[in-house]
């Protein structure tokens, strides 16, 4: 894993490793009917090792969000299979193995931060008492650095703080996987950097497996262990890039020559991913 490898476009991995938590094989998604039929994703092979941090990057409309929804069990693939620790995404979701974070924090404006953090858990586990839920919510807020804001309503929180609550809400489920769809996409550049750094620290402290959809090259390289580049028309994984920069990484990682080299390399991959893919 420390050696950077570039997989040829459309190539399948030689084998699925045993420590893979997520594995998708030959996943295609077709949406619409008749004339409007559209191939959103074609023949996606993806494996995410347990405890890894993987980013999906690609141009708008490449289906990276759809791929995340397939992993979350929210979109059923038209063909191919997905397994999360040997379970289907739907089963995994029912076992609280999947934590979701979207671009919009989607907090409930009538609940304070701690109740928002425990909101999904309260539905997933109906046996938990109110005080146990509160305690769990508070614990998660502490983890994301918002322990002091437990009693604030969403309209009293900044965009970055709201997104921290959304992450706390996902973590409260104690999921095996954190699936994040452009979670910092609506934040300003400075907050975005801070959030990325916080996410790295949370990842290292909790050991969760994280799949991050992003359109930021810097973010993908700064945070992840592996980046998959998606191409457009149809959405498919064109290339993958292992990020060999050692952890723990902080903001200064961006000054390392290797970082700059990776940025250039990833930018080149993205450029070629814009070309519609024929048979390859």
């Amino acid at each position, binding site marked *: 894993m420390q050696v950077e490898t570039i997989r040829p476009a459309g190539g399948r991995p030689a084998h699925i490793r045993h420590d893979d938590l997520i594995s998708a094989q030959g996943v295609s998604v077709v949406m619409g009917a008749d004339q409007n039929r559209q191939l959103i994703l074609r023949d996606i092979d993806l494996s995410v090792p347990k405890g890894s941090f993987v980013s999906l990057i690609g141009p708008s409309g490449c289906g990276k969000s759809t791929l995340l929804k397939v992993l979350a069990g929210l979109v059923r693939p038209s063909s191919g299979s997905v397994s999360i620790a040997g379970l289907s995404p739907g089963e995994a979701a029912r076992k609280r193995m999947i934590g979701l974070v*979207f671009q919009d924090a989607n907090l409930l404006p009538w609940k304070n931060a701690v109740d928002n953090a425990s*909101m*999904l858990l309260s*539905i997933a586990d109906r046996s938990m008492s109110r005080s146990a839920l509160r305690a769990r919510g508070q614990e998660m807020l502490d983890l994301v650095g918002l322990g002091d804001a437990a009693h604030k309503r969403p309209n009293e929180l900044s965009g970055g703080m709201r997104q921290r609550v959304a992450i706390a809400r996902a973590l409260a489920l104690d999921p095996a996987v954190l699936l994040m769809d452009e979670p910092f996409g609506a934040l300003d550049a400075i907050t975005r950097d801070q959030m990325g750094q916080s996410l790295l620290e949370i990842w290292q402290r909790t050991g969760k497996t994280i799949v991050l959809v992003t359109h930021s090259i810097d973010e993908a390289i700064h945070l992840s262990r592996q980046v998959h580049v998606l191409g457009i028309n149809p959405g498919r994984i064109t290339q993958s890039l292992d990020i060999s920069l050692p952890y723990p990484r902080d903001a200064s990682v961006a000054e390392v020559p290797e970082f700059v080299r990776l940025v250039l390399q990833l930018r080149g991959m993205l450029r070629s991913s814009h070309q519609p893919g024929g048979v390859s």
Partner: protein
Amino acid sequence: MSKQPVVDISPPQPASGWSAATSSWLPAVILLLVTIVLWEAAVRIFSISSFIVPAPSEIARSLVAQWDTLAQATMITAGEILFGFLVSVMVGIALALVIVRFDWLGRALYPLVVLFQNVPKVALAPIFILWFGYGLAPKIGLILVIAFFPVTLSMLAGMQSVDRSLLALMNSVGASPTQILFRIRVPHSLPSLMAGTKIAATLSVIGAIVGEFAGASDGLGYVIQFASTQLDTALVFAALLLVSVLGIAFYYAAEILERLVVPWAPKFSHA
């Protein structure tokens, strides 16, 4: 991770207290007083007959002289409005819940509700008198058919505007439709519902007066009709004034209710 300093970023509160209140109300009060003075002067200068347009002073005199009758009529009408309003809100909410929760029933009901909305409901008043007599029932019925619609419509709009990714989150933990309805859709609809409730409060006043016009032996609507047949226009205006006061009172009661129910909802200022 370093602890984020918690900064209070709540928006600045608008200036409160008497000085702010008077300065925001002052223009309206001045305009009202000027209008009353001009009205009084015009009636006196052009010596307009009091059964055509009574002077404000004459309306005030009538208000004092007939106070007992008017006060009793006001209580009756207020009771009808309150009762009718509460029934309208409850029926309106129940209808919205049924339409959202039971898809098939909703698709059957919703077009009919919209169709019914286009019936001129004031024209139903005589039929309600025929069916329910001269008592409280026809007034409540009339208020209900006039006022439930904005409640249903606003609550539906609120319940259907829940963000799709929030629903995805709920589905990801296996939330049932009933859980999504009561834990997300209903609370999410409250700000919108309260807006519809304020409209219903105003419409309830209209419903009560129309009900009394069509057939009643008491209430402000009855006083207005009776006084106009007697050419006691000053009394008509006095009763109208009280109807307006009732309307304003119910509107602000609904607004206070809104602040209690949805303190978290975004507000817009009137200033």
